[in-house]
């Protein structure tokens, strides 16, 4: 499979990582600015741990908050994009190894993906 030689895979993977991180950083930067403009004068509240409100701890809740243009929700959405970047890289690896008909590595990458999904679903630990 010359079209899917390791070199091309490396290149695509590099771009994927770069775009994921840059996009996430942009979202966090812009929504962070909006957050500070509105809440900057308040007293900080991370000295004592109270945990995040429920809607900022799961994917559907964060998406809902982001769509409502809540600045906290938007920052959290950017962080979610960041966490999704390595996951997307693993998904891409599964596809790339599949194109190369390298079934041992398809199995290995699927195992890693399964473990990641287990971690991301997170509540049962």
């Amino acid at each position, binding site marked *: 499979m010359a079209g899917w030689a390791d070199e091309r895979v490396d290149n695509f993977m590099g771009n994927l990582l770069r775009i994921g991180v840059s996009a996430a950083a942009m979202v966090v930067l812009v929504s962070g600015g909006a957050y500070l403009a509105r809440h900057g004068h308040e007293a900080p509240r991370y000295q004592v741990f109270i945990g995040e409100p429920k809607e900022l701890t799961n994917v559907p809740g964060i998406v809902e908050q982001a769509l409502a243009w809540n600045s*906290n929700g938007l*920052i959290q959405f950017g962080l979610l994009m960041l*966490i999704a970047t390595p996951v997307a890289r693993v998904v891409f690896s599964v596809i790339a190894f599949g194109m190369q008909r390298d079934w041992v590595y398809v199995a290995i990458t699927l195992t890693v993906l399964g473990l990641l999904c287990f971690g991301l679903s997170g509540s049962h630990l």
Partner: protein
Amino acid sequence: MNTLELSLVIAVGSVLAGFLGALTGLGGGVVIVPMLTLAFGIDIRYAIGASLVSVIATSSGAAAAYVKEGYSNIRVGMFLEIATTIGAITGTAIALRLPLRVIAVIFGVVLMYSAYLSWRQEHDSMVAHQPDRLAKLLRLGGTFPTANGLQHYEVQGVPLGFGVMYVAGMLSGLLGIGSGAVKVLAMDKAMKLPFKVSTTTSNFMIGVTAAASAGIYLNRGYIDPALAMPVMLGVLAGSLAGARVLAGAQVRTLRLIFSIVVALLGVEMIFNGLKGRI
């Protein structure tokens, strides 16, 4: 200090941490948690959440460049990610049950060990020419660019490397760090990979390892958007700048100073943990 002022100070601290971390090869993540807890009195759970997020950003950012240059060994990375993600999930599960002061003490010990490793920093120039059985089965060998063209290498000590990687993943999940030093140890010492391949492949793996525990911490409310924002942006900017300066910089003295700072932070983390002030 209000939120705006604190965010700016934290951002400046994070830029510095990322810059020095990239220059010295220690990584910025390792000093973020001590900085946030010791200097700003932030709860260690929020600190770990913010640190973990910044670790994903810097490692993915750097990995993007290394992967293209052809140093990282993707097969080795993918295979060992099984060990680091299982380790990360275990480490996070332990962290959720451990008293905070114990986490602080473990953190201190890891800081001191990282400082020691970085200060010693000698590495084997021995490159394996014969693969072990598992390496042969998994076709782990690869090539990397040198001044004289592509050089081929084989991989040994796969089971030992896999075991050390599990520990690296566990520390990453437990403490919210990248634990690049332990990952490099596994590949450089146990598996006899060329040093440059070890460091770049380690970088490549850190993002996936951290993502495994970040999901769990997000779920438990450890990741505060307002705190993670200046930390993540600061460390990312600092480490990108550091990587740019690194080409051609003389960093021996700097590395020595930074390892001393890291070791002192370790002592203070242990002290505070034992006193129950974390």
